[in-house]
């Protein structure tokens, strides 16, 4: 089973999600409602397993909702009548990533980004004191992951999943599903964690890219191993920052490329060409993460 099989697998997954999770995960419903996902507790303050159970499922569901809204917006942009309309679609994709609305979608407009504190959802206490000493004592502007789009929710969900994975009473089956959900989630959002500094001994955020060192040449030659979500995000920025000078055809093509990248992080990738998308590193996407979370009992 090759590409057709992948599509079939993804379709089945979508149906399962629709049936099991509820109608609000239906892409059509989400597209129509355009409602914001509701807020959930900050996992930075709820990292015990029991509390994590309350947040991981909703965060993952909201991520799917935002992703599918972005997909719909991108597909609409592919058929937009004007360059401005294409850019509006790109702006929505941009917003899905970090929850920030671009103030100016014209070519020369500056795009907002979360500062490092917002991006990290920390107060500073997590870091080494020497590191904190350099940062000032002001708290982050935003402390709620739900205000930070797919990426903010994903990072919060990751913290919860890690806490659940360490839960002593979890069955081996549950742990496997949680591990699978983590792997798939990481493919989407990338991941960072706190490490002790190597030589300076400071506890700082570092990238954990894959932990897979027997990867194929294709992996090493890729340039997107910090999370597939960053690809449509980059494409959305590109579209907004390009002066198309009325060339809507080119803008639409760029939107079509954006659509394919969104589908990638939602559906995953059949990296080993075995005809299926497994919930593992380099294959599982957001749907796979939700499916595995559900199998682990985190989504009812």
């Amino acid at each position, binding site marked *: 089973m090759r590409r057709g099989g992948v599509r079939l697998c993804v379709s089945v997954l979508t149906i399962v999600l629709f049936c099991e999770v509820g109608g609000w995960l239906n892409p059509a419903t989400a597209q129509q409602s355009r409602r914001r996902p509701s807020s959930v507790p900050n996992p930075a303050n709820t990292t015990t397993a029991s509390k994590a159970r309350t947040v991981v499922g909703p965060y993952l569901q909201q991520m799917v909702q935002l992703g599918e809204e972005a997909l719909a917006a991108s597909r609409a942009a592919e058929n937009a009548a004007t360059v401005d309309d294409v850019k509006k679609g790109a702006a929505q994709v941009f917003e899905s990533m970090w929850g920030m609305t671009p103030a100016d979608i014209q070519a020369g407009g500056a795009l907002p980004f979360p*500062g*490092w504190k917002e991006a990290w959802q920390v107060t500073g206490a997590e870091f080494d004191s020497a590191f904190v000493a350099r940062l000032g004592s002001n708290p982050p502007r935003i402390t709620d992951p739900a205000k930070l789009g797919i990426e903010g929710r994903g990072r919060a969900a990751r913290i919860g999943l890690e806490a659940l994975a360490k839960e002593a009473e979890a069955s081996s089956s549950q742990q496997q599903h949680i591990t699978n959900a983590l792997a798939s989630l990481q493919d989407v959002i990338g991941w960072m964690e706190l490490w*002790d500094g*190597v*030589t300076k001994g400071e506890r*700082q955020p570092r990238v954990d890219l894959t932990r897979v060192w027997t990867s194929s040449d294709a992996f090493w030659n890729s340039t997107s191993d*910090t999370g597939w979500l960053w690809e449509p995000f980059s494409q959305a920025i590109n579209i907004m*920052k390009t002066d198309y000078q009325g060339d809507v055809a080119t803008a639409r093509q760029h939107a079509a490329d954006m659509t394919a990248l969104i589908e990638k992080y939602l559906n995953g990738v059949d990296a080993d060409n075995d005809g299926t998308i497994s919930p593992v590193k380099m294959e599982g996407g957001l749907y796979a993460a939700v499916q595995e979370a559900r199998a682990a009992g985190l989504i009812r």
Partner: protein
Amino acid sequence: MRRSRKPGPQALFAKRASFASKFDAGKHTYMNKRFSYFSLALLAFALVVWAGCAGSRQAAPPVTSQAPAIDTHTNEWITLYDGSSLQGWHQAGPGGFTQEADGSIVAHGGMGLFYYDQRPFKDFVLEYDWKAATDSSNSGVFVRFPEKTEDPGYAVNNGYEIQILGRESGNKYVTPYHTTGAIYNIQASLRKADKPAGQWNHEQVKVQGQHFQIYLNGVKVNDFFGDRGREGYIGLQNHSDRDRVWFKNIRVMPLPEGGPMNLAEYFKTDQTAQPIRVLMVTATDGFRHGAAIDTAKSVFNALSKTTELQVDFTEDINDLNPQNLSKYDVLFFNNSTLRIKADKPIPGTVGTWDLTMHSSRGDREGTFVLKESDGSYSGTIKFEGRDATELEDVTFENDHLTFNVPFGENKMPGKLDVVGDSVKGAITFRNNDVPLTGILHDGTKTAGIPEGTVLVSDAQKQAIIDFVKSGKGLAVAHAGLDAFYGWDAYREMVGGGLFQEHPWVQHVNIIVEDKDNPSTEHLGDSLGINDEIYVLDSNPRWNSHVLMSLDNQSVGIVQGPADATSNDVPISWIRKYGNGKVFVTKLGHFADNWKQPDFLQHVVQGLRMAAGRIPADFGGYRVKETIADNVWPDDIAIDERGNVWIAELQGKVHRYDAATGETTQIAQIQTTNPVNIEHGLYGIEVDPEFYSGQQYIYLYYAEPESFINTLSRFEFRDGKLDMSSEKVLLRVPTLPQCCHQSGDLEWGSNGTLMLSTGDTGMSEVRPDWENSEDSLEAFKERHNLKDLHWSRLVDSEKSAQNLQDLRGKILRINKDGSIPKDNPFYGKPGVRWEIFAYGLRNPYRFKYDSVTDKVYIGIVGPDEITTYDWYDVAEGGENFGWPRANGRLLYNEWKPEMIPNYKPPMWGYTYATGGRSASMGPIYRSDGKYAFPNAFQDKVFIYDWARKWIKWASVEPGVWTNDTTGSVKAYPYQVAIPTPRLKNIKTFDVLTDTSPISMELGPDGSLYVAEFTGFWGPAPGSKVTRYRWIDHDQPLATEPTASSTGTK
């Protein structure tokens, strides 16, 4: 070549007697002498082999050809060998030539002489093709041997042998007098131009009168005047069975009889020309270039009869008095070693002696250096064209030196007795002594005269000064620069530098920097010559017009040192001293060079320029000015009117007003405190249309708290930056950790704005733990990283190799913030289209070259002993490899093809030679008022913050090779990738109390440097300085400056 030719009995006796009389052979019996001769021959051969083994070979210079000047269209060719018939050829001596299937003939056996005996030739052009089986295959082509003969040795002694003997680099015992292109034992070849063994070479020989010119593969390899017969036969040498050399397409074209019979005829000028009266001083105190002096005297004596040069010669210093000097137009210090006293001790060096080894194959010149440290002695011995060999077991007591010279697994004992400024002794090989003699070159001992002895009186010195300053000429050749060390005026006259060492006695390629000068216009791009090349203790480039300089690649220095070493070796220059005109050349060590027409023409024209008879540009001098000393500059930008915009790391912005010379603070931007994390205000640029209404200044800085690096545009109003006018063009999110922010701003093609961004990785990447497998494993164990792939220990994969991230990149945007559609990744889905190049660690400074449309980048590497800083160049889309590659290291056993779009470096250097911060300066192109000379045009400037030097270099095609050993995970196989390389890297200046941190080219050709002190905060001494080139006719400084320094 006659390497194995045996002398007849009489010759043997004569050689033996001569040797015995010189070197105490009286103790030997006749039989002993006979044995001794054989042994000495063997010994001489072995010593020459050893001398050849003593170091690495010189690199073959890139041949900058001189087009052959042979007109072959006027007469008929006579085919001597057409590929089928050898009729008309005669073999003398053993061996011969056999025909091959391709129509060529190949030598076998020998030694023999195979010649065309049908007729002799007088003036002619001879052409032939040849190829050699190996680099050591020996043969030659004979011309003008006057008689038919059965003696194969006759041709070499009575005609001329145009030598064929492979490439010098592949042959251990060949001097420039015995290598391809040489006239065997008569005239050294000018340069190496032969192709590798196995390839056909095309050679042309033009003989007219007594003027011989040899062109090999289109390049002049010899040019001399003979003194043997006017007519003779043409032949080939079959040297031995080992020396397989093929010939084909042999033909000759007789020319009408004529041509110069000697140099005097060749240089003959209109006798009505006003005489140029020259006093050539050849007095010496110290090493005497006796043969060169004698030849030069003979040649100039002859020229005095046929040219306007009227040359007198003196060995008497007393002739340097006002009355006598008044008779002359030019004073010519030619090989006038006049040390007065050797007052230039080299720390730790007891002495340096110019050495001569007297072997049966002739004399060979070299150098012997003796050093002392804490009572222990060491030293080196070196012979011409070879690297120095470290001596072993050195003792020095009561002026008696003993030592051992390593030779393979053996040692050759040596001894030298020091007597005054001379040494005498021998090296012993297989119980036979090969004599050595030498004379002190410099050191702590006096040079043959008591300390304080005055050779030239104050009155004589003043007479010379007055003579030159009055508008007369001064010429200096070779050892004339080994003179008058304690006399500052002489030093100044010749350009500021005097002899320091002569590292190269060999074939060199001399680059002609000014092809329009009367003394060089006949040379084309370069001069090939066999000579002794001086390195001076100060570079005359900064106050002279350099005409020619050493092609460093011809002495094996392909790129250059990463330390403060000058690596800049001007060979000839002219300059002004007062109203006087000065011509200096370092050449002229060997006697035969004074008979070499190209070199002699250079000197003759130099004398004419010094005499003021032919006009020339005598150049100017470099001046350095401090223009702002009340700033702590991090980055600077220059506008079209020469105003300087200055950014400080802690947020201050200043403007230097070129019209008033005043510097004013114009802004204080709110940014992150840079202490410990390197964040702050990084870069500044000024809009190229600033004076056309767009008065914008562009700043790249870190937003406080958010740690988002931000590129913004501000309006300049009423002498200040209007901070409320900020328009954010680009945001680059980062982390609040040290370091590698980069942040240089430059204007790119089509009005785009370019920005360098660092990987923002921790400085701890690639630390010492990678130096051994054990330390690597211990590190991973200590940090619980055993399951982590080694390469992923490096943070920078997330930034430098990640095309969704703007860090570790060169970025390119339109100046309104939009994305240019000609960016390399434009249209590629899912990657940021602002990216121009990637895989960079800390590209602290870069420059765009509008002429080549390329971006040159200096990249700071990790703080680890085997890692590199490096320089590179981008045209768009390149991946410079970090953190998968670093300089010459391919980490993680990666092959280059595993790094997409990989571009290897132009040059790099490691921590092994000290701290480093590779930074890119301007690509110099200017014809402005203060523009530097032509030699600087099209060159790139580079500088290093840590090492404090500023260098200039050319960008040329080359090959990058990887370092297979610098890391335990380095790719273990040698890789060679053709790529542009920095070559002829030379030092422009070395700062002392400050470090160069930014460098720009001004609209008038001035070079501006931001000089930095302190680290995270300001420190006294920081400033902005400016280098300018001032023509001799210009005033020293034309605008207000804080201070100026320069040598006129």
